[in-house]
């Protein structure tokens, strides 16, 4: 930071204004925090864990653009660690989480996993949040042969590099909108516009959506990307409007899905179906948009209403511990812990090679819908994503049929016709 500022001074005054501005985009050091095992709590089942703690490291974005989403994952990791310690620990030893913050920056993430492995000497690791960070971090864990459960990432590129130590927890990004496209098709809509942020996960989501839409015989009338941290999308929306699609989906995170919905209304862009990845499944989407959130579809990897194994207990204990409801990013984080626990149980040791073997062959139920099961590349194949739709204050699951607890409302009325 200092050197940058200094250099900018030397560059002369007018230039220094510009450069100093640019220097703002780089930010300072990292914050560390670690959750000690819940000591002193009476074990509910099994003997109290004994011996040296098993250190499990993870770096998750808890600040920066994905800080909000990453926080859910961290809370889930900590809840899992607390629970495993009350039921006897991992191989009889207490679990100690070492959790760092990568500030939503893949470069910082790689440094922190190096630190976790080399300096903190953690026994095992759990995955970071976002596909971009996970993709970068997996090069580090692969190098040190640490099995990595990607509890917060889904871009399929992660599993296209012949890596041996990275395992998917939930469906790949490419398949996020399959359910939405199926519904669009069933409702007779022919045209779709796809927009996305230009980072790893949203790109993968958009690419998969485009391919699937084409396969289903839909026509892609507009497709474009926008940069991360964008503050204005009016020119993009103007172009979408000119293309007159029936369906608009965004490969997006939280802030951009709110911005897209807002500006769609402000520029009076009317579509019959509107869907966003990540953002739309989060409670904050409804809080930030109020009634304007209604009718928006979103893929979700988990919902509180699903009847999966241990889901009610997970929901209740999470809410009690963190004083807020979990979202799907909490559930994928928690599932990551559950899968790691099962793999260590199967390997019966902390030998990372044996755990890798176990992860490659394991087939178990977690709080997520479907199962955990990976193919040869480590790609998740048995998880089943669901589709939700905002309807008033609720967001019922409207598909797939086997898990639905609500009916889709179509088409989305024109903005002018809404209160």
């Amino acid at each position, binding site marked *: 930071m200092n050197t940058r500022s200094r250099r900018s001074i030397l560059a002369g005054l007018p230039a220094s204004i*510009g450069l100093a501005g640019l220097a703002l985009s780089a930010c300072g050091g990292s914050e560390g925090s670690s959750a000690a095992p819940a000591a002193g709590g009476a074990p509910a089942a099994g003997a109290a864990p004994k011996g040296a703690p098993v250190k499990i490291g993870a770096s998750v974005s808890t600040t920066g653009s994905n800080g909000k989403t990453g926080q859910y994952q961290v809370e889930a990791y900590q809840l899992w660690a607390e629970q495993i310690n009350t039921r006897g620990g991992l191989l009889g030893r207490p679990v100690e989480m070492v959790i760092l913050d990568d500030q939503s920056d893949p470069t910082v993430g790689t440094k922190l996993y190096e630190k976790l492995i080399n300096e903190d000497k953690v026994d095992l690791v759990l995955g970071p949040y976002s596909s971009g960070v996970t993709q970068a971090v997996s090069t580090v864990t692969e190098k040190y042969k640490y099995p990595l459960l990607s509890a917060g990432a889904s871009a399929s590129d992660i599993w296209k590099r012949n890596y041996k130590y990275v395992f998917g927890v939930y469906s790949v990004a490419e398949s996020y909108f399959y359910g939405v496209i199926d519904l669009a098709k069933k409702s007779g809509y022919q045209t779709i516009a796809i927009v996305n942020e230009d980072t790893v996960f949203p790109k993968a989501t958009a690419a998969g959506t485009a391919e699937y839409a084409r396969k289903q015989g839909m026509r892609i009338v507009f497709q474009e990307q926008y940069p991360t941290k964008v503050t204005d999308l009016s020119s993009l929306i*103007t172009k979408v409007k000119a293309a007159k699609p029936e369906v608009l989906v965004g490969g997006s995170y939280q802030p951009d899905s709110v911005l897209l919905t807002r500006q769609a209304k*402000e520029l009076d862009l009317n579509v019959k179906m509107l869907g966003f990845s990540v953002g739309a499944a989060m409670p*904050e989407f409804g809080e930030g948009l109020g009634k304007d959130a209604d009718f928006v579809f979103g893929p979700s990897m988990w919902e509180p209403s699903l009847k999966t194994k241990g889901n009610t207990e997970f929901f209740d204990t999470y809410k009690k511990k963190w004083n807020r409801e979990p979202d799907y990013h909490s559930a994928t984080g928690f599932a990551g812990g559950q899968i790691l626990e099962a793999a260590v149980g199967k390997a019966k040791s902390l030998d990372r090679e044996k755990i890798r073997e176990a992860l490659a062959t394991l087939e178990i139920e977690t709080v997520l819908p479907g199962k955990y099961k990976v193919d040869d590349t480590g790609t998740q194949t048995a998880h089943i994503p669901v589709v939700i739709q905002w309807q008033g204050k609720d967001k019922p699951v409207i598909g797939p049929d086997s898990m639905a607890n609500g009916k889709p409302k179509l088409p989305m009325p024109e903005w002018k016709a809404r209160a």
Partner: protein
Amino acid sequence: MVTYLQVIISGLLLGGVYALLAGGLTLIFGVMRVINLAHGEFLMLGAYASYYLFMRLGLNPIVSLLLTLPLMFLIGWVAQRFLVTRVVRAPLLTSLLLTYGVSLALTGGAQALFTNDFRSVPFMSGAVNVGELALSIPRLVACGIALVLTAAAQYFLVRTRWGKALRATSQSADVALACGIDIDRARTLAFAIAVALAGAAGTLTSFLYTVYPEMGRTFMLKAFAVIVLGGMGSFPGAFLGALALGVIESTAGYLTTTQVAEAVIYVTLLGMLLLRPQGFFGLKEA
């Protein structure tokens, strides 16, 4: 044709909000030769003030301006009295470091106090249609308020005694001092006004964008581009620069992509620095 008009209008509406932020930044630079790197964080504080006033008290952000403007003015006054005044005559690096430190402290403080949640104020949305044009209601209102505040600040600078003192201090602090102007007070006033304007920009962005602790940085980059365009130290220049930047951003976004538009902004900035470093109306010596 209508589409181009739509794009240009969107750009102008965007520029109105940039103007509020950049106006204060350039005012501080003009009067003190201090580049306030914490300016974006004052916008963030204004945005949070409005967010909480809306969520807790149900206060409409436009009404909450009546509270946030004086509050931010006060914060600016205090910041100048206790911090910035110490570095006004110091080398530029000192003031850069100080304001950058303030920026980090405010961002960090906001992360601790308000958490990293992305928040938005569900207030005012939708469009008015004029023929085939859709005009965003919240952006029209925000731009209108920005215009009124900028005009008021400009009136103050040009027509009032204290405004004259500010401009005199800006032109030459020593001569102003020799003429009996209390330049310390003039500087404090300039800083407080600038922070109040940044806070107002924050209020307006609270219902246009997402509110989060690091939001100031994104806007700061735009504000720097604006004052390079408009000319450092020139208040009307910042206004025109902001509108120009808004239009450049939206037109480039329409003709190419939003990603390219971001690059176009900084290429424009660099081009301006090369060809006309003083901007449209900048101070010749800086």
